[in-house]
């Protein structure tokens, strides 16, 4: 099984969440630039994927496509690296409402950025920052590994 430290989406979601955090920490603008919309849209998709994730099948109509390994890995990775998320996961409803709130905030930022309360915005920034930092740690770990098609040297640090 793929190790949690080398999930294949580490750079895809790492780039995305780090850009989103950077964007949301900038002074608020009335209009969101097209490029920034792309980033927030993609973040929204990520959170939707997590919500749909196989682990809890929380979607209203859980379908088999929810069982994609990417979703499972991303979700399990976040569970393992985010203690707050893991705590919330003990009660399925708590996790669901937390992630739903993040999703609603991202939708709000795309629709009407000024209508989003600061506290909601901050909660989303915190979630994405913790995700980006966890992915960065994972990327550092991944870079230390030898590619699986290379023979392992006899000695290494």
């Amino acid at each position, binding site marked *: 099984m793929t190790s949690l430290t080398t999930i294949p989406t580490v*750079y*895809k979601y790492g*780039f995305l969440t780090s*850009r989103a955090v950077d964007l949301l920490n900038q002074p608020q603008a009335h209009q969101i630039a097209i490029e920034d919309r792309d980033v927030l849209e*993609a973040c929204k998709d990520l959170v939707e994927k997590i919500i749909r994730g196989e682990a809890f099948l929380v979607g209203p109509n859980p*379908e088999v496509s929810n069982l994609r390994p990417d979703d499972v890995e991303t979700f399990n990775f976040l569970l393992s690296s985010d203690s707050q998320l*893991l705590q919330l996961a003990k009660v399925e409803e708590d996790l669901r409402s937390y992630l739903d709130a993040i999703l609603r905030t991202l939708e709000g930022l795309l629709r009407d950025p000024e209508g989003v309360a600061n506290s909601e915005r901050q909660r989303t920034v915190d979630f994405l920052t913790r995700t*980006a930092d966890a992915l960065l740690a994972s990327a550092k770990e991944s870079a230390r590994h030898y590619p699986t*098609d290379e023979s392992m040297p006899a000695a290494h640090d």
Partner: protein
Amino acid sequence: MTDHATASTFLKAEQIRAQAEHLYLLPFPSSCPRKFASLLSQACEKLKSVVIGLSKRPGTADVDRQISFISLFLVDRLAPTLRFIEGASSENTPASLVGPLEKIGKMLLPGAEFLVRRQWRYNYRVQELRQGLGEELKGLLSRHDFKDLFPDEPQKLYSISFPSFERDSALLHVNFAHEIGHPMEERYLAADPRNQEPLAELRTEIEKEDTGADVVKRAKDIGAATSYWRAAVEELISDTISTWVFGPSALFALSEVVTLSHSADEISKDLHPPWRFRLRNMLSVLEEQGFVDPASHELQGWRDNAHSSLSGVKSSVDNWLKHMSRVVEQNTDWDAIRREGIAAKCAYESVSRVTGSVRTFAAQTVADTAYTRDLFSEEVPWLLERLFCDLPPNQIERSLWDVRQVKLASILSSGWLYKLAKLHPEFDADAERYVERAFVLNRLILKALELSVVAGEFMERDGESARGAAKQE
């Protein structure tokens, strides 16, 4: 002032770009490696621009984090892909085999491209290189830069790796067909909604077995069962496709490498099914196709006496098949699967229920390129006769005016039968002679493949010019 990490990231991008440009100049047996080198070079240019943009902003934790990601991406993702290009050069590959394999790959996976390359680890492996890279870069690059890099949706480029020192062991490269089958799993799931139902049912099955487990443990078990299921179905599809494309050679080739990969009975760490499980499936597919008699476990439809010099070939192959039947009759792999835990048990029980639909899907997928017992029985004896005379087994020559090209699968089958019947006994008599003859066999097979490609191209051109002449008339 730009900090050290930013400058160093810029330099890394430039170094990778320069190396990709250098590799571009190597001779390759196909155009794919060069196209990929060019993509890497352009990606590095785009990344350099992103780094310059970030360097102009005041240093914050958010900027530092992005620089760190880019730097790690360069060393962890982009730089290692240079080895794919280097390993795909003409010098590093069985160049005469690359073209025919690409052809099979394109037939099975329309729209995809293939890069055949050597790797140092002793294994065959398939990896998608281009679409994955595109998905990663999409999160980083601006719309404009991304479009510049990928004017159309990034198409899949599969790298198919083979063990480096086996470059000239053409017979072993039958395993390529197995690797080309790997990406089919997605298509199998999409082909019919009923194919996905067992995945959905895994949840209920786990819940039945996992009574008392908390929600997180159960979720992880469902995730693990899903991964086991998908990995096992993927291998079954690949093995079945390989058997349909190459016939008995697929089983011969897999049996040579599979015993080195992991235990006969355990699921490997990367979730490959136990190899006893896989060989059982392949043998059963060969029986369904009529290559092997299910009762006697012997080769069907082969007549040694049709070609006197071939006497003994069938009995050697039959002995091998009987040995393989005894290996797969043991069910110790199932004991190991149950010991692995609830997730593995539920997944594999489900997989054994879908074997029929997996095989039907694989058979339909390769229908156009399937290798049949009739072709095998008709072509291989003639090719074996050529091998016995140290001639490349590239065509059937009944007379000077009656020459016929044969299927790639027949060329490789003749090599495998020669190896089992003629070459292996040489080892007992004289090990040095055995090695010498093994090298000769490799050369004859590679030459046959090369001649077969040349003849195929000639006939294609000949056909085109004939069609052109007919039009003019």
